[in-house]
């Protein structure tokens, strides 16, 4: 037992939790906590904007599976980290965020840099705490890590008034003993183990299904369940779709991997769900970007919904069997239940379903036209070359927009935890700070941030962090001079009336800007240069690299389910529309006869 003040106790508590890295930014109210950091084993990474601290913590958590930790001061710093908190909440990212707060006696007086941090973040954190006594710090930190990482993971915020960490305040000292620090959460006991009767009921549905699809979401990754999923697929031969949050949970190269479903999902993944008679939802939540118009979604499918958060069951789609449990444990239980039933010999033959799907895959691959002579780059081409020239286990982060969808579509994700993006909240600017966090957590891996020009301008300052802290991330900036996804919508749904979507190829000068931030920078304008520059970038490991790929502005992300439309209204690539029309008319004839 050691006598410590609140600030020392806070840092010691984080050490006890095994924290390696804090992404943070000091300031008035959190100042006392920054003093003991000097003596700590924890690495502090000084970001250039508090939003960067939050997204870096998220990137770290996504890549490592360990909770990301960020620390900022009160008031404007706390409000700057609101976006990453909301992002982590929607994507179930384990994160502990520590905010400074004005002294207890000043709370409620509109003091300098005071804001109601716990009030503001109430609905965008899994839980938050305002600590009022120094001696409560260890127990609260313990509780924060427990809540952030157990059950459905999420962000937890701990707000710490300045006086309880103030080394000059005699009341801020107490006997520190982390082992015996306690917390009491009588209302929190997340369900983890699956109910075996329900697992059995699920197994029965699987045995009888003719057109089953495994609809795999981020929960599989959060539960470290990719391996169990692989076993389940090997046993059953059931095809898999991986949502935007689950890319890599099942290898894209596997013949039963149909890829990404949803608004920009591929034809086969979308239609497999539509025509399915059994959706096995594993850690997925029937997000509107997956279902399209709900009334038209997978009309013939029964649903097995496995999710650790019972509130997801029936929130969107009523399940036939709902299992509130850890995805990995539930998958393992499902495997033994199926084996007990003599699977696969006892089950329905799904080979004709599988051949239907491979027929679709053949007719409707992802496709785009290559650049003609003198034309700028195609973003899809750039991503394909990045994919083929970078190490197989490269971690890819992305921002939000066309580049994100192209990256998800054209990268081949064969390993879990190699794809990090902002799925639920759709936060532009996520990519660069998330890459910083991922690389800080996985220093031996290549980390490519695939970014758009709009996103880049939102959080590029974290490249200064990367340079200064020697975190050699690589940024592939797909510069098409437009807010590409918004332009696509205006082109398709607003009669090509382009409103406030033009940025510029040249302003800012991205190469100069990147160089000014300490990066090596390249500009690529023609397809012939692409490979050489990517190879150069991959060979640089002592500082960050930015490659500006000048892209055409005409590309659209296809396929696309129009906003508000049903998945049946999927718009495929122009080159595939004739085939699609033939299939549609054939199926409407057969259903009317």
């Amino acid at each position, binding site marked *: 037992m050691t006598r410590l003040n609140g600030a020392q106790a806070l840092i010691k508590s984080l050490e006890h939790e095994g924290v390696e890295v804090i992404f943070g930014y000091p300031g008035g109210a959190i100042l006392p906590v920054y003093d003991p950091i000097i003596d700590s084993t924890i690495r502090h990474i000084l970001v250039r904007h508090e939003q960067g601290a939050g997204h870096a913590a998220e990137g770290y958590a996504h890549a490592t599976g360990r909770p990301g930790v960020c620390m900022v001061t009160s008031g404007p710093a706390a409000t700057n980290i609101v976006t990453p908190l909301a992002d982590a909440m929607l994507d179930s990212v384990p994160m502990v965020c520590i905010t400074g707060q004005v002294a207890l006696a000043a709370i409620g007086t509109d003091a300098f840099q005071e804001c109601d941090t*716990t*009030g503001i973040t*109430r*609905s965008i954190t*899994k*839980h938050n705490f*305002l600590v009022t006594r120094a001696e409560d710090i260890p127990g609260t930190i313990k509780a924060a890590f427990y*809540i952030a990482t157990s059950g459905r993971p999420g962000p937890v915020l701990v707000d710490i008034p300045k006086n309880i960490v103030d080394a000059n305040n005699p009341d801020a000292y107490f006997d520190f003993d982390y082992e015996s620090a306690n917390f009491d*959460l*009588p*209302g*929190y006991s997340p*369900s983890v183990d699956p109910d075996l009767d329900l697992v059995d009921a699920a197994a029965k549905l699987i045995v009888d299904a003719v057109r089953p699809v495994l609809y795999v979401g981020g929960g599989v990754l959060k539960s470290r369940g990719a391996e169990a999923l692989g076993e389940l697929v090997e046993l059953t031969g059931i095809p898999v779709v991986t949502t935007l949050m689950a890319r890599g949970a099942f290898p894209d190269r596997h013949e039963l991997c149909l890829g990404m479903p949803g608004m920009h999902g591929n034809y086969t993944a979308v239609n497999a769900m539509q025509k399915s008679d059994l959706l096995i939802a594993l850690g997925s939540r029937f997000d509107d970007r997956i279902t399209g118009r709900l009334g038209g979604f997978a009309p013939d499918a029964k649903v097995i919904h496995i999710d650790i*958060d*019972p*509130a997801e*069951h*029936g*929130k969107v789609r009523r399940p036939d069997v*709902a299992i*509130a449990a850890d995805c990995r444990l539930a998958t393992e239980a499902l495997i033994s239940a199926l084996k007990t039933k003599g699977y696969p010999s006892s089950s329905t033959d799904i080979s004709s379903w599988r051949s239907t799907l491979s027929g679709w895959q053949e007719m409707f691959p992802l496709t785009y036209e290559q650049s003609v002579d003198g034309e700028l780059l195609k973003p899809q081409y750039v991503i394909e070359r990045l994919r083929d020239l970078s190490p197989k286990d490269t971690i890819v982060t992305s921002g939000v927009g066309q580049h994100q969808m192209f990256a998800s579509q054209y990268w081949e994700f064969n390993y879990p935890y190699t794809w990090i993006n902002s799925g639920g909240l759709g936060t532009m600017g996520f990519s660069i700070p998330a890459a910083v966090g991922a690389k800080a957590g996985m220093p031996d891996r290549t980390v490519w941030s695939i970014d758009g020009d709009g996103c880049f301008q939102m959080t590029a300052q974290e490249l200064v962090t990367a340079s200064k802290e020697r975190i050699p991330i690589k940024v592939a900036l797909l510069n098409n001079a437009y807010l590409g996804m918004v332009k696509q919508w205006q082109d398709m749904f607003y009669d090509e009336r382009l409103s406030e979507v033009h940025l510029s190829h040249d302003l800012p000068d991205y190469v100069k800007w990147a160089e000014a931030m300490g990066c090596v920078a390249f500009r690529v304008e023609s397809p012939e240069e692409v490979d050489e520059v990517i190879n150069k970038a991959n060979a640089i490991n002592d500082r960050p690299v930015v490659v500006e790929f000048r892209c055409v502005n005409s590309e659209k992300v296809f396929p696309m389910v129009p906003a508000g439309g049903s998945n049946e209204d999927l718009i495929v690539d122009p080159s595939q529309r004739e085939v699609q029309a033939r299939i549609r008319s054939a199926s409407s004839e057969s259903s009317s006869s």
Partner: protein
Amino acid sequence: MTRPGDLSHHTLSVLVEDKAGVLARVADLFARRGYNIVSLAVAPTNDHRFSRITIVVDVESAPLEQIVKQLFKLINVVEIQELSPNASVERELMIATVRSAQDRSQIVELVDIFEAKILAVSKDRLTVSLEGHPSKVDDFEELLRDYGIDDVQRTGRIALPKIGNTPAKVRAE
């Protein structure tokens, strides 16, 4: 107009940790998810660690199951009971100031019939109180309305399960 006594409403008895901000968390959740609260009453329980929030919810705004599950996700929510009207005793208190210049005797008669109380009297006003089942309180308020109500305040419903009738604790699954 929806009234607290409507049978279509459901009553949730929510045991929460008695900590700062818990009521705000519950209220926030209802606001954020678009659930309607018809009435809400909060008070300490016999265990000093906990408070009980009795919430009458409008199930037209969202399925009760979703409301309960979302409530359960709040870390400070310990237990939720759904109190169906026929398996619980429910009470509400109303006080109302009624214009009585013309018809004081009729109002006094109503007070007698409903076993209400007269709390204050002036030349042309009566302040009355009634404690009872919310639907009885509804009826009384409706009848008083004809005479002209200046001011009315109701506490919102509180409820306990009937003795020997333990309602299923609504677990999160």
